[in-house]
């Protein structure tokens, strides 16, 4: 039932065409490869921008979540699998972030230089196409194929670029993830049987849940989890590893430490957010009852991530690992917004996904630029860099403030909404998250002040230069976005209104009509 032009397929095809073009280019024509990569990134960016701008006009179909630009082509009718794509208010922002960090990754690679451009850009583009597929697919088999397929280019990307530690880090990451993904596949097959032999998201969401039947071990009377709960846990584990939630996080610091910034902007920017995406799109709506069953556990893990990541960031000496742990803490915040299961919390989580994508990309770029200049990543071997690098100081300051949740910048907008949503669920959540905010202030200042202030460290290299013009122009748009989203977060909020309502409705077991409809508020201003 494809209506109109297949815009979403085009979103997948453009990068793949770019990859093919790069594949056909001889290795020595590096400039051509770079041009192709840039064109692919820009074309994807404009395409996604166009989709977002036309989003409100596009027709929506389906329930419980209505998708726009929907496509549906029969693929394996025997098993009920189709090529189904769709865009909603949730995936629109993930798609936008995907396009932005992809472009950013390409730009950073161009600015910083990359040693095997053909391999790097080819793999980066293929990964981007796979993540776009994960975000757009509305068929669970297709989703799974993209989800697993993403690991393929990612494996080569991670194991071919980065420092000496990368091999071990990559094996850890891949081993960690693949093991649980197979469980998720089993869960998908289970859902397929429950939904009358269809992999379609709509069909599975509409299935009659048989949650009441308890598996008992014959002869013993052991009561185990329901099949739906098993399936939920399989999904939740796969997503929790991807986010990652503590204690499933140990692949992250090693991997982030070894990757170059060009790969990191993309990886930290979008790949780890797909776990959040999975929680909202699949765990929450396909298993509304189970989500409530396990809400306490998930909230505990989110709070643990916030505090644990912050404490680790407070003691770490490697500047890239500090940022890596701060990322764990921030993703704990985003998870908190999702698991609170309130409209405002979910709004905050989606907003914070965008915000964090921008902030973490900027932070990793800055860390790499500092490492290049000082020749070390050891925090205790650096101080007083402000004098030599005023531009670096200024842009790093804005980024660090945004990261620690400074009101007026984008990090606050998301955290405020998340904490308000969590507060609605329970005040305890907001108070513990508040402790995380104070700790964030502490570790971000420890990082920023430690590098920038105090007298210049004695062992510092001679002749450090400030940010060069093109390096500045990578960071300035990011910092401008932090200010803009801090003052006008409604840019994000406007688009996902309807979809968030639908997700929240789907996550409640009662019918959707119970959710309050928008009512205009009249301000009674005291004069």
């Amino acid at each position: 039932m494809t209506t109109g032009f297949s815009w979403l397929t085009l979103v997948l095809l453009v990068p793949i065409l770019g990859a093919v073009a790069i594949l056909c280019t001889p290795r020595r024509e590096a400039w051509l490869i770079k041009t192709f990569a840039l064109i692919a990134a820009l074309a994807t960016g404009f395409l996604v921008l166009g989709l977002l701008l036309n989003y409100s006009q596009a027709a929506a179909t389906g329930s419980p979540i209505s998708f726009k630009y929907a496509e549906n082509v029969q693929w394996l009718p025997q098993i009920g699998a189709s090529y189904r794509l769709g865009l909603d208010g949730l995936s629109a922002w993930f798609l936008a972030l995907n396009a932005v960090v992809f472009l950013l990754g390409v730009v950073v690679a161009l600015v910083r230089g990359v040693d095997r451009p053909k391999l790097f850009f080819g793999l980066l583009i293929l990964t981007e196409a796979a993540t776009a597929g994960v975000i757009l697919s509305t068929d669970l088999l297709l989703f799974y194929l993209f989800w697993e397929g993403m690991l393929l280019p990612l494996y080569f990307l991670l194991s071919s670029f980065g420092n000496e530690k990368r091999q071990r880090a990559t094996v850890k990451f891949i081993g960690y993830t693949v093991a649980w993904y197979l469980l998720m596949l089993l869960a998908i097959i289970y859902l397929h049987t429950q939904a009358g032999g269809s992999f379609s998201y709509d069909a599975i969401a509409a299935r009659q849940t048989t949650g009441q039947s308890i598996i008992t071990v014959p002869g013993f009377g052991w009561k185990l989890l329901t099949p739906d709960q098993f399936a939920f846990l399989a999904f939740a584990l796969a997503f929790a590893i991807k986010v990652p939630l503590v204690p499933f996080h140990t692949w992250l610091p090693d991997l982030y430490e070894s990757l170059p910034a060009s790969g990191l902007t993309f990886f930290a920017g979008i790949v780890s957010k797909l776990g959040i995406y999975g929680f909202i799109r699949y765990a929450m709506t396909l298993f509304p009852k189970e989500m409530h069953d396990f809400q306490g556990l998930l909230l505990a893990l989110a709070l643990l991530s916030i505090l644990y990541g912050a404490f680790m960031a407070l003691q770490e000496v490697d500047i890239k690992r500090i940022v890596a742990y701060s990322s764990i803490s921030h993703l704990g915040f985003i998870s908190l917004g999702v698991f609170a299961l309130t409209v405002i919390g979910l709004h905050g989580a989606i907003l914070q996904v965008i915000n964090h994508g921008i902030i973490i990309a900027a932070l990793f770029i800055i860390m790499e630029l500092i490492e290049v200049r000082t020749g070390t990543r050891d925090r205790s071997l650096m101080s007083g860099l402000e004098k030599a690098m005023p531009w670096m100081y200024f842009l790093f300051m804005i980024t660090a403030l945004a990261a620690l949740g400074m009101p007026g910048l984008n990090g606050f907008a998301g955290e405020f909404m998340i904490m308000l949503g969590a507060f609605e669920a329970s005040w305890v959540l907001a108070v513990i998250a508040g402790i995380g905010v104070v700790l964030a202030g502490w570790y971000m200042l420890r990082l920023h002040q430690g590098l920038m202030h105090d007298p210049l460290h004695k062992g510092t290299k001679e002749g450090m230069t400030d940010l060069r013009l093109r390096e500045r122009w990578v960071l300035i748009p990011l910092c401008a976005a932090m200010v803009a989203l801090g003052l006008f977060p409604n840019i994000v909020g406007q688009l996902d209104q309807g979809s968030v309502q639908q997700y929240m409705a789907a996550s409640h077991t009662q019918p959707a009509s119970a959710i309050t409809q928008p009512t205009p508020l009249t301000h009674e201003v005291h004069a």
Partner: protein
Amino acid sequence: MSQGFVTTVVLLVLGFPLIGSLINAAFGSAKRRGLVNIVGTVSIGAAFVVSAVALIVMLTAASSHRAVTVTLWNWYVVGGSLSVAFQATLDQLSIIMLLVVTGVGFLIHVYSVGYMEHDEGVARFFAYMNFFVFSMLFLVLAADLVFLIIGWALVAVSSYFLIGFWYERPSAVAAARKAFITQVIGDVALVIAAFLIVTNVMSPIGTHIYSLSMPTIFHNVASFQYGSSTVTWICLLLAIGAFAKSAQFPLHTWLPDAMEGPTPVSALIHAATMVTAGVYLIARFHPLFDRAPIIQGLVACVGIGTSFMAGIIALSQVDIKRVIAYSTMSQIGLMIYAVGMGAYAAGMYHLVTHAFFKALLFLGAGNVIHAMHDEQDIRVMGGLGKRLKITEKSFLIGSLALSGIPLFAGWFSKENLLGYGVLNGPGHVALLLYIIGVCINVLTGLYAFRLWAIVFKGEPQTARPAAAHEAPRIMLVPVVILAALSAIAGFFLWWPVAFGSVRVQDFTQFLSPVFTSITSGPLAHEPGVASGWIGMLVGTAMSLIGVGGALRLWLRREPDAETVASRIPRFITQLSMHKFYFDELYDAAIVRPLRAVAKWCRKLIEPEIMDGWVEGVGIGVDDLGNTLQPFQSGLIRDYIAYMVFFALLFVIIIVGVVVR
């Protein structure tokens, strides 16, 4: 006042300092010192002019039409559940804050031109200073909780920049971080207070939409029952935010350290503006505080307690700026006491006069430090009055105003707020607080004149005071203007005057619509100055005792006074010298345990448990493989044996199940 006019005023008042800051940040440098100085000062002067025009327009309006709230843009709207707009308000309270911030701020900026004359970072300095003024104005104009929180935090971050301005000094860097983290604690308290407010206040039309607009909240303040636990919690959290910003116990330790910043910074943010924001916050949220009597009492006690403690500490400090810093903490404590007692206008009145004489004292101290080539230890000064004649006279006026000597500004405001306490407070507790309050008067007189006498009078303790020079004119003019204001402002604000058609009212009457018009249950009654006569007489007497004691001890150096001083128990002097050991206490009770937890996470939890289980699984799989490997022996007889064994096992299980 029309909406359009107020919007224009808001945009101009915020716009001038912000643009000034951006220009200096982008184009300023030590080579373009002239441009930097002009941009830095004119931007604040322009904001002051706009504020003054706004005041005149406000005075021409009828008193019921003086508060106007404008909506600038929607910050975040969630259909059906949340509506956050950026709203600014111009009313009697915010216009007073605007005038103080821009007026005193302008004088301090002019002074800075001279003070920073030889500093390489002058562009950075003015960019930060302008940004600070912008943040402070942002805060006082806020009419929306998010707007307020943003302003609240912007003030903290710009003070962080300014305290750590000389970033190559490790002590300045540490002080800046300490101040900022204390502020973040206050921010979080404020955010959670905001959550409690929005989830509990009834929306105007009975919907479930959360509104964060302060006029709406105050209008629906009847949602909060008098003395209910909700409003008590809200006010406690608001008070924590206010204490962090106003350096009140137990969040006060950052203020003395913050003296690491340049002296004009101390004058601007640690005397006139930032630290008074807590007083402003409580006054602004008075409809809620009026409903939380327990927290009002707590606020009053904390205020008077901090004031007393700071007064004692100030007596033994030897750094000229730290003495003034503790004096500030003490005076802010009195303001906090006043707003805790429900005397909002009295607290605001003291805020205004204090801004004048405390900025004056800091700038005077700046002249001394300038003349002594960055020396701040008062033990090496002495006799400076002969060399710095104008500074000495101004400093004397500031000290007189601070001590509350009749007809100087501080006398009107301080005796007013203390008198309020004894007349309107409830019973014995109020009387006790009042008695402590008048004891603080003695302390104030003592430390104020101790400082003046040791620095300016007596014989020079070293050769350096003899070589000191008076400050250049650009640093003297602001000092003299502030001295004039410190001398007359109290009287001026007390006395209603009429200029043609523009009617200037007395301060309390001008503010009274803000503090009474909102339907907020039992509102405290403002006494005005006249009804505080008894308090005024007692308070004045105590102030005179303090001043007299100080002059005998440190100016005339009478031997019998020395012996009196030596009879003070040792533990009191020790507490005073060590600032009541709060830094040590917090370090041991909070900072070290948190560091220990973090270290424990890094050294033990992460490698052993978090990573341990993953590695464990890996090792386990390896081991399993190694264990199973021998079974793959390649011998047919082994395989047959396994086959028979498992077939038998299978049969037994099947039979078992069927038989059951």
